């Protein structure tokens, strides 16, 4: 079977980046859908990514066990995290940090905990998991990612987890056979719209062997899209129409309920 040229290039690039030993495996993945439509009955979605681990050359032997880490990254946003403190008996925002162009959605799915898959140095280099993903903060005039136990960073990640926008699941990847796997990607109901990248990394013995990526798109569709676009692109008309609707409904009620 002839391997397409782009796949070779991608694997070569990934191999170089990971400085792994001789490239022996490649990943073939397929996402259940590349387009998630947010319609009026949208209550969240669960996407499935199937994949297999295949020998790069016909006679290369496969290893007995693999690890897999899939990182799903949503469109970038800039968010400000604020901290309250008690001042004169009441709680006031006293301090804040801006997180610049961080993922609005971040799902890290693996077959077992990240710390068991790779050591700290590798995890940091490859940005594996919520602890090692780079979250740039603006601290005064500096732009930097703080250490993972920085209180602002910690609370930012926790708040995003509570909002179901960030998640790290050590059982998000299931190996159906030693070389065939399934990744379930949960998207919450309030998932941001935009383009998402899905990055799949294959590990064995703490080393990255191969990586591949794909993408998906979350879009509003139908009526939702129509209303959203009208509100964004024709704000004034949208506002006038909404106000007219309010007055019409108000007037209609007096006609329906008129008792005198």
């Amino acid at each position, binding site marked *: 079977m002839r391997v397409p040229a782009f796949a070779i290039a991608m694997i070569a690039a990934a191999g170089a980046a990971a400085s792994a030993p001789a490239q022996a495996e490649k990943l073939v993945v397929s996402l259940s859908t590349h387009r998630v439509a947010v319609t009026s009955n949208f209550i969240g979605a669960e996407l499935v990514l199937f994949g297999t681990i295949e020998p790069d050359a016909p006679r290369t032997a496969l290893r007995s066990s693999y690890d897999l880490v899939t990182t799903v990254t949503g469109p970038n946003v800039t968010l400000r995290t604020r901290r*309250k403190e008690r001042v004169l008996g009441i709680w006031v925002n006293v301090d804040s940090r801006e997180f610049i162009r961080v993922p609005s959605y971040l799902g890290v799915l693996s077959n077992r905990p990240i710390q068991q898959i790779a050591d700290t140095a590798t995890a940091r280099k490859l940005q594996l998991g919520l602890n090692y993903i780079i979250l740039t903060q603006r601290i005064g005039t500096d732009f930097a990612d703080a250490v993972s136990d920085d209180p602002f960073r910690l609370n930012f990640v926790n708040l995003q987890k509570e909002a179901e926008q960030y998640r790290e699941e050590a059982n998000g990847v299931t190996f159906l056979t030693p070389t065939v796997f399934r990744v379930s990607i949960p998207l919450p109901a309030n998932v*941001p719209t935009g383009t998402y990248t899905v990055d799949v990394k294959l590990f064995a013995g703490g080393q990255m062997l191969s990586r591949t990526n794909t993408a998906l798109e979350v879009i509003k569709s139908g009526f939702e899209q129509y209303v959203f676009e009208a509100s964004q692109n024709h704000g004034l008309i949208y506002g006038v129409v909404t106000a007219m609707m309010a007055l019409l409904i108000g007037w209609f*009620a007096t006609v329906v309920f008129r008792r005198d």
Partner: protein
Amino acid sequence: MQIYLPIADLPVNIFLVLAMGLTIGFISGMFGIGGGFLMTPLLIFIGISPAVAVASVTSHIAASTFTGAISYWRKRAIDLSLALMLLAAGILGTAAGVWLFAVLRAIDQLDLTIGLSYVTLLTLVGVLMIKEGVQAELRARRGQPATLRRPGSHNWVHGLPLKMRFKRSKIYVSLIPVWGIGFLIGFIGAVLGIGGGFLLVPMLIYFLRVPTATVIGTSMVMTLVTMTSATVMHAATNHLVDAVLALILMVGGVIGAQFGAHTGQRMRAERLRLLLGLLVFAVGLRFAYDLVVIPDDLYSIRVVRSQ
């Protein structure tokens, strides 16, 4: 049944929102207020972002006050010239409020300001209304008729110049306090995202001695105009008005307002004011509790920029 809100970006239960509209509509019809000070916190409670809640509630208030205003108009219970004078200053107040809103949001003190203002205004107005209501209730118990000559009819407000006669309300007052009240209501309404009816009604009664017959109708006209223009302004500048959310709220709101208005008209004005006072005071205490008690999370996130 869940429905996804296109601007708020989350699904809500359509019946829950409808019930909220009905309940607040009932209260607003009964007391002749917009109900924004109750609806906005409720929407935030079910997970809608404060900015979207404030912006969308304006159109809901527009709908329910329009219903109310029409029925008061039929009863000739609206003082249009007084409403116009209040509105003239109200628009200036709104502009000033919108400016302050943006400043406070930028320095992350908007929530605190809203909280403190709610506590101060609601508890103060609540206490005043309860006091007045209890006194009226006691008078009624003793079998005394409601005083025909309102006590303190001639306070310092009546000494001010630039007087104008408002025929429908049968009052002759200076335009200075009228404009002052209009400006203040417009200003507070814009900063707090409320119509301000619960403040306007007592102010008109206590400062201007507007009679009960016209006070609610007049206050509704002012709320109607400010909230309708606020809907358009919010939609045009912040793009935060969720028409789907607003529609569900409105349908519930106008139905509730009809029943509320009928209930309210069967009750004595003094008792109505006492009840509203209790409600206002309770909401004020709720906000005070939030300010003082240790928050669940000391940290919070605000979206600065998407993409």
